[in-house]
C-alpha cells in the first residue's frame, strides 16, 4: 500500500467505506437539520404568532396561523409609525453604505497607488480607530451632536459611521492583490486617477465592494444604542428603537404580543433578505478580513 490515491482502492474497499460512511453521514445531516431548526425556531414561532390576535396569543400552545392574517402588520405600519421608522432605517443605512464605500475607496486608492510620505503612519492612524467603538466615545459624541445642532437629524445617525477602518483595510488588501502588470499597463497608457478608479479598480473590485456593502448595510440597520441616544424625537427614529417603543407602549393591560411580533419581523426582514441574496460576496469578503 505504497500509494493511497483514490483510484487504487478496489471495489470491495469502496463498498465497505460507503456502507461505513452512510449511517455516519446520515447522523451528520440529522444533526445539521436539528441545529438549523433550533436556530430558526424562535423566528418561525414569531411569524406564526404575528398573525394571531391578543387572545389567541394568550392561549399559549395555540400554534395555528391566527385569524389576524396580515392585519397586525398593517396596524404596525399605519398606526405605530413603522412606515416612518422603516424609511428612516433605509435612508440611514443607504447613506452609510454609499458614504462609507465611497470615501473608503478613495482612501485606499491613495494608500495603494500614490507615492505617499508616511504611508505606514497614515494607515496606522486609520486602523487604530478599531480601538474606539461607540461606547468609548458616547458621551462626548452625544454632546458634539448637540453642539452641532444635529440631534434628531439624519446627520447624527450617519455622520459618525461614515468612515471606517475596516472598509479602508479591506479595499487596501484587495487593491494590493490586483496584479501589478495590470497597474503597469494602466500607467503606460497614461490613464488619470479618476479613470483608473472607475475603469480599472472598481470593475475589478465588484465582489469586494458588494461584500463591504452587505456588511455595512447589516451593521447600520442593526444599530440600536447610538440611535437611542442621538434621536429622541419619534418621527426621526429608526426601526430597531421603534420596536422597543412598541414593546413599551403596551405596558397596561394585555400586551398585544401579536402586534409586537409583527413589528419585530418587519425589523428583521431587510437585513435577512440582503444576507440571503448576497451571501456569496459577504463570505468572500470575510475570508479576506481573516488573512
Amino acid at each position, binding site marked *: 500500500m505504497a500509494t*493511497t490515491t483514490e483510484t487504487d482502492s478496489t471495489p470491495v474497499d469502496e463498498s465497505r467505506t460507503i456502507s461505513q460512511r452512510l449511517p455516519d453521514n446520515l447522523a*451528520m*445531516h440529522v444533526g445539521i437539520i436539528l441545529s*438549523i431548526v433550533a*436556530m*430558526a425556531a*424562535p*423566528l418561525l414561532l414569531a411569524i406564526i404568532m404575528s398573525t394571531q390576535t391578543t387572545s389567541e396569543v394568550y392561549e*399559549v400552545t395555540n400554534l395555528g396561523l391566527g385569524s389576524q392574517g396580515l392585519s397586525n402588520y398593517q396596524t404596525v405600519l399605519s398606526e405605530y409609525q413603522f412606515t416612518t421608522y422603516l424609511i428612516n432605517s433605509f435612508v440611514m443605512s443607504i447613506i452609510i453604505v454609499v458614504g462609507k464605500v465611497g*470615501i473608503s475607496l*478613495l*482612501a485606499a486608492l*491613495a494608500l*495603494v497607488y*500614490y*507615492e505617499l510620505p508616511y504611508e505606514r503612519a*497614515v494607515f496606522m*492612524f*486609520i486602523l487604530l480607530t478599531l*480601538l*474606539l467603538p461607540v*461606547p*468609548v*466615545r*458616547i*458621551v*462626548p*459624541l452625544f454632546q*458634539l451632536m448637540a453642539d452641532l445642532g444635529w440631534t434628531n437629524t439624519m446627520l447624527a445617525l450617519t*455622520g*459618525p459611521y461614515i*468612515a471606517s*477602518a475596516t472598509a*479602508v483595510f479591506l479595499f487596501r488588501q484587495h487593491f*494590493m492583490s490586483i496584479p*501589478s502588470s495590470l497597474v*503597469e499597463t*494602466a500607467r503606460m497608457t497614461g490613464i488619470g*486617477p479618476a479613470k*483608473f478608479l472607475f475603469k480599472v479598480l472598481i470593475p475589478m473590485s465588484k465582489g469586494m465592494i458588494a461584500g463591504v456593502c452587505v456588511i455595512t448595510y447589516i451593521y447600520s*440597520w*442593526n444599530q*440600536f*444604542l447610538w440611535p437611542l441616544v442621538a434621536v429622541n424625537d419619534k418621527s426621526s427614529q429608526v426601526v430597531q428603537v421603534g*420596536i*422597543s417603543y412598541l414593546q413599551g407602549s403596551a405596558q397596561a393591560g394585555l400586551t398585544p*404580543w401579536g402586534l409586537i*411580533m409583527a*413589528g*419585530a419581523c418587519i*425589523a*428583521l426582514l431587510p*437585513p435577512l433578505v*440582503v*444576507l*440571503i441574496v448576497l*451571501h456569496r460576496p459577504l*463570505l468572500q469578503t470575510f475570508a479576506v478580513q*481573516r*488573512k
Partner: protein
Amino acid sequence: MAEQTKPFDSKLQAAALLLPTIVVLVAFLYYPSLETFRLSLYESAFLGQDLRWTGISNFVELATSSTYRNSFVVSVLFAGVVVIGTLVLSLLISYMLFDVDIGSSSYLVAAIWPYALPPAVAAILLNFLLHPNLGIFTHYLELLTPWTLDWFSSGPQAFAVLAIVAIWKQLGYNIIFMVAALNNIPETLTESAQLDGVGRLKMLYKVYVPLISPTLIFLVVMNTIYSFFSTFPLVDLMTSGGPSGATNLLIFKLYRDAFEFSNYGLASAESVILFVLVAILMYIQLRATEGHAQYGA
C-alpha cells in the same frame, strides 16, 4: 510583498483622497475619544455645563462602588459564558457542515443567518417566547423538566436567558469564519489521521481544532468584544439590568449613568475602562495571530 512602482505621485491628490476619511475619523472618533479621557477627570453637573476637575476620583469612586464592581464581575462572567457557549456550539455546527460537504451552500445560509439578526429583534422575540407566563418555550420547558422559569425575578435565570439570546445571535458570525477556516485546511494535513480511523469527535478536537486555532483566537477576541459592547439592546429590552443587578452589564450601567443620571464625568471614566479592555483584547489578538502566522491561510 514586492514594492511596485506606484502609478501616481501627486501628494496633493493623495491628500485630497484621504481627506474625507481623516476628517470623519478625527471629528467623530479621535476627538470624542480624547474628550472622553478629559471628561473622565472631571465631575460634571447640569448636563455637563458645569465641570469641576477632580483628578482620578471618578475612577476611585468606580473602584469602590459595589454596584460597579458587581457590573464588572457580571460582565466578565457573561463574556465567559457567551464566548465558550458560542464557540462550542458553532464549532459543532461548523464541523457537521464541513463534514457533509454536499449541498452545503443552502445549509450554510440556513446556519449563518443569525449574523443578520438585529440584537433588538432577538431580544424582543425571546422576551415573548420565554415569557414566564405566556412563552411557548416556557410552557414546554416546564412540561418536560422539573424547572420553573421565572427570570423576571430570578437573577441567575435572567443571566442565563440573556446569555442564550446573546449566543443565538452570535452563532452566524462564528460559523462563517469556522467553516471558511475548516475548508482552508490542506487535505494532506488531515489525510493520515483519517486513515487511522480516528472517530469524528476525536478528529475534531485532536486534529481540526489545533489547525484552525488562529481563527478560534480571533473569534474569542471578537466574541469577547461583542459580549461587552453589543449586548446593550438585550439588557435594555429584556431585563433592564435586573433583577437586583444580576444582568447589569457594564455597557448598560454606562448608558444609565450617562443618559439617565447625566453623570458625564463618571460615565466617561467607565468608557475609559472599556477602552482599556478593547485595547488589551486587540493586543492579545495581534500577538496571537503573529505567532501562528506560518499556519495561517
